[in-house]
């Protein structure tokens, strides 16, 4: 229990205060001070503590702040209780030395928590007011405190709160007695029995000693009787402090009472069952990820499980370093097997329904437990998962949410860090590459930690996709898709011209006055039709501009992806030129020199081809919608990308039917380049033979003529859970060494924009031949 306050030590602040009856002193010249009536302190404490169960909770919170791993709350009310009814709260925390007790515990309002808001275990301290210790008064009139700090002598004192109740006594004048002996028993945490799925019985406690620290509070002369309801309420309150994972040695509270036997034992968190979704994932050393997504059925506590099994490289696509790709199973091997559990708690009434908890309880629980924590061999590794600390949000969930605050109705929904309680379990032997930093706080920011982060983000993405799916299916409202602006203009034009014709036809049969009015209406209609025609033209121009923007973005993405090929080309050019120079200087065979120069020329052609590739994309003739030979547009792109593919040993095959369609050539290129960029990246993520196949075929869709562009690859494929999300802007599964997203998340979104704009269609599937993803994009012929 940390030192937190003082029952008031007098300090000499100048001369003794004047009292009536003193003479010869000019009181008006003396400085004036407040003095504190001892009763005031009790009133203060009693008013801040709602009831006796809250008082126990406050004392247990002090144990939490003192880094205890176990707190035992013993309540004996029966006649046979040793020495009469008592409450005993004992922990294995850091304890206090005699000077801690004197300088801190006995100093009211002092709170070490204000000076350092985090404990050595990295816990965010729960109280800051420095009055927790007065809670003892709320429980009984006698308090015996025994405490043992590491490598210090034990200490102890006795406080009789009834002495503070005498009116007119100054708080600093009430002596606090020392205890004659300081021996007490320090509890030990109960072990989780995996087979029996319950905690084992409490291990035998050990006597306090210089190597076994802790604090015991023994409260006697209890002020209130405890009934079953009180004990149950106490258990409920204490359960909010404990993490919802059984197998962790983090913080355990054990109750031992003689009022309600059913409440005895380790207090488990009821909130495990409250999670809207629980994601349990295991990554084995072979790189396969198995898991379950468990959600509650609507309106009941029934839990529904969805099994997930996929290779690591479908869960997330970590990119190790520029220019170097590593297979995902290899990455998994480097990390070693890990297990993760993520619990998502939306802060709404539905979450706590049927749990005997309210939203403020949920908030309290999340305050103590939100964050994704790391447990090595069941022991917590700080500071991961500690809110408010620099590395607490080590997965940058806050940043991730801030960049994309979409709600759960959107497919790119992301959970907020304050709604997530998570744990990842690693082992010293099983994950040797996750090494402690020299400061013993946190892990070395190496490659394995990066892979671990990627894994967790992948698990979280699965959880989010699942929640979005549940959310939208629960809130589905049938809605017709909105017509596109161009459709609306077309429709209006047709209606207006029909109206004008009808008016013109009826004009002759109408009286002159009406006819005149009609002429005016017709004129107006003609002018409106003209405006609409102009609007349509503007749409076309805007369409062209959108196509240009998309193309520019596409060039950017392609440059980033194939960029290292260009850099490699430039490096090789310089290397071969320098070699030629060296050979020349050393008088080597001219054939060798020429061979090096040839290589330099070949590389320079490759590099300039890349420049031409970028410029060729934005040529003026491609900026208008016209009838184009789609096959030759696609073939030209493939020819230009082929060298980059070959340089990475990717076999690029093509099957292009002859297709002519009225379309922006730029849109076709945007689709093909982005699909190829994707295929290039992902075909290198698998240990299979690297292959990419492109197919173009004419195809009608719902009576409209058009064509399909299909790109298949030998990569890991797209996990089912995220197939709907990949088309959203900024959604990416590509991560870097530190687990941070590195993909732009724009490639497929650009394709999606083309599809929406042209009213096309897109789909993603598994390619049975190459084993990876198969993307199909259907675009209509605008001239059909």
């Amino acid at each position, binding site marked *: 229990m940390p030192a937190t306050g003082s029952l008031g030590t007098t300090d000499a602040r100048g001369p003794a205060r004047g009292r009536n009856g003193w003479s010869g002193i000019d009181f008006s010249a003396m400085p004036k001070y407040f003095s504190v009536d001892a009763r005031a302190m009790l009133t203060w404490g009693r008013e801040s503590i709602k009831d006796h169960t809250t008082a126990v909770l406050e004392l247990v919170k002090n144990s939490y702040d003192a880094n205890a791993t176990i707190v035992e709350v013993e309540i004996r009310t029966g006649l046979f209780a040793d020495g009469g009814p008592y409450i005993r709260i004992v922990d294995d925390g850091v304890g206090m030395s005699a000077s801690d007790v004197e300088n801190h515990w006995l100093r009211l309002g002092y709170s070490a928590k204000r000076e350092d808001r985090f404990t050595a275990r990295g816990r965010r301290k729960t109280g800051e007011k420095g009055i927790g210790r007065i809670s003892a008064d709320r429980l009984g009139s006698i308090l015996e405190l025994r405490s043992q700090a590491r490598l210090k002598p034990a200490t102890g004192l006795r406080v009789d709160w009834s002495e503070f109740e005498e009116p007119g006594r100054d708080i600093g004048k009430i002596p606090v007695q020392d205890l004659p002996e300081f021996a007490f028993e320090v509890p030990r945490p109960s072990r989780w029995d995996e087979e029996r799925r319950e905690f084992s019985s409490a291990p035998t406690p050990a006597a306090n000693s210089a190597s076994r620290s802790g604090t015991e509070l023994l409260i006697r002369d209890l002020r209130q009787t405890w009934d079953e309801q009180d004990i149950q309420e106490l258990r409920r309150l204490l359960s909010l402090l404990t993490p919802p994972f059984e197998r962790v040695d983090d913080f355990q509270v054990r109750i031992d009472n003689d009022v309600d036997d059913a409440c005895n034992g380790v207090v488990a968190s009821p909130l495990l069952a409250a999670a809207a979704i629980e994601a349990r994932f295991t990554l084995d050393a072979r790189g396969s990820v198995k898991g379950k997504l468990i959600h509650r059925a609507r309106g009941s506590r029934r839990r529904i499980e969805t099994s997930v099994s996929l290779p690591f490289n479908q869960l997330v696509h970590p990119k190790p*370093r*520029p*220019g*170097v*790709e*590593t*297979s995902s199973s*290899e990455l998994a091997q480097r990390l070693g097997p890990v297990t993760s559990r993520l619990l998502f708690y939306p802060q709404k009434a539905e979450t706590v329904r049927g749990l005997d908890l309210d939203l403020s309880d949920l908030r309290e629980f999340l305050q103590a437990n939100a964050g994704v924590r790391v447990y090595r061999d069941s022991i917590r590794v700080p500071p991961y998962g500690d809110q408010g600390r620099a590395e607490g949000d080590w997965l940058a969930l806050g940043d991730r949410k801030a960049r994309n605050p979409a709600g759960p109705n959107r497919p790119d929904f992301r959970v907020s860090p304050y709604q997530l309680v998570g744990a990842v379990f690693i082992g010293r032997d099983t994950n040797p590459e996750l090494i402690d930093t020299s400061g013993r706080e946190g892990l070395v920011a190496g490659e394995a930690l990066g892979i671990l982060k990627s894994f967790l983000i992948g698990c979280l993405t699965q959880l989010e996709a699942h929640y979005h799916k549940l959310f939208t299916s629960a809130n589905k409202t049938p809605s017709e898709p909105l017509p596109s602006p161009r459709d609306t203009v077309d429709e209006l034009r047709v209606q207006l011209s029909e109206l004008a014709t009808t008016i013109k036809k009826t004009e002759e049969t109408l009286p002159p006055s009406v006819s005149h009015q009609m002429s005016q209406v017709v004129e107006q209609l003609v002018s409106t039709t003209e405006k609409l025609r102009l609007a349509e033209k503007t749409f076309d121009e805007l369409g062209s501009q959108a196509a240009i923007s998309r193309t520019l973005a596409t060039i950017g993405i392609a440059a980033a992806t194939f960029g*290292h090929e260009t*850099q*490699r080309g*430039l*490096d*090789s050019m*310089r*290397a*071969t030129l*320098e*070699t030629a*120079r*060296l*050979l020349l200087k*050393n008088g*080597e065979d001219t054939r*060798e020199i020429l*061979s*090096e120069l040839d*290589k330099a020329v070949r590389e320079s052609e490759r590099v300039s081809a890349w420049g031409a590739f970028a410029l060729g994309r934005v040529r003026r003739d491609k900026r208008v919608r016209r009838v184009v030979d789609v096959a030759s547009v696609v073939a030209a792109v493939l020819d230009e990308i082929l060298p980059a593919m*070959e*340089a*990475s*040993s990717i076999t690029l095959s093509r099957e292009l039917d002859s297709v002519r369609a009225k379309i922006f050539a730029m849109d076709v290129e945007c689709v093909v380049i982005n699909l190829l960029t994707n295929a290039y990246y992902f075909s290198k993520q698998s*240990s299979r*033979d*690297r292959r990419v196949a492109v197919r173009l075929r004419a195809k009608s869709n719902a009576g409209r003529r058009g064509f399909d562009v299909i790109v298949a690859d030998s990569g890991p494929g797209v996990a089912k859970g995220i197939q709907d999300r990949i088309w959203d802007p900024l959604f990416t599964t590509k991560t870097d060494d530190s687990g941070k997203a590195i993909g732009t998340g724009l490639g497929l979104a650009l394709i999606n924009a083309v599809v929406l704009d042209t009213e096309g269609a897109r789909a993603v599937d598994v390619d049975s031949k190459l084993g990876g993803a198969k993307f199909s994009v259907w675009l209509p012929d605008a001239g059909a």
Partner: protein
Amino acid sequence: MPSIAILDDRKDDRETIGRVVASTLKKLKETDSWSVVSDEPPSKERDVFHWLDENDATVLVTDWKLNEGAKGKRVVTYEADRLIKEIRGKRPTFPIFVITGFESEARAHLKDVENIFSRKDFAKNADTVIPQMLRAGLRRYDEQRQLLTRMDSLARSVAGGKASSKQRKELKSLQGYFQAELPTIVNVDAVLSEFETAKRKAESIRKKVERRIKKTKGTA
């Protein structure tokens, strides 16, 4: 003759590096003491030992990104990281140099190598770089020779029946160390035990035959 071994998945690149090394050796008048070999990475990392020993290599010069090139063939599934780890596991002092287009990333990532050079500057700095490689290679050569001499003397003691248990233990550990380099040494054990088994079998057959002969004589 010790050699400098070059590994690169791209033919053009390993040819260029090979030319730089060979030409500089000529300039340093070291062509009689050193040879240069180059190849694409073996399909499995552990096969590198066989290739190194076959060519008497005492220095390895490798590309970092080994899993890109090899046109027309199946690309290897590892990078130099794994190769280095494999070599370090068996030969902690073997000199390894890395040539890459990503020098700064490699410096941050690869720790257990002799040195890392930028591909584009390799030829330019050949005069300082190649002597560095030769020094490391000679050191390795001497080390290896000393170990082999020690192993030879131990083997002689063992064969002469004069070896202490400590010496036997040392020989065994040296045999383990050179396992990949000199597979025949380890196989001597296997041959001997095979011989012992054959001898035991022959002995039991001999006894059987003798018994039968005795039996036949008895009945006669």
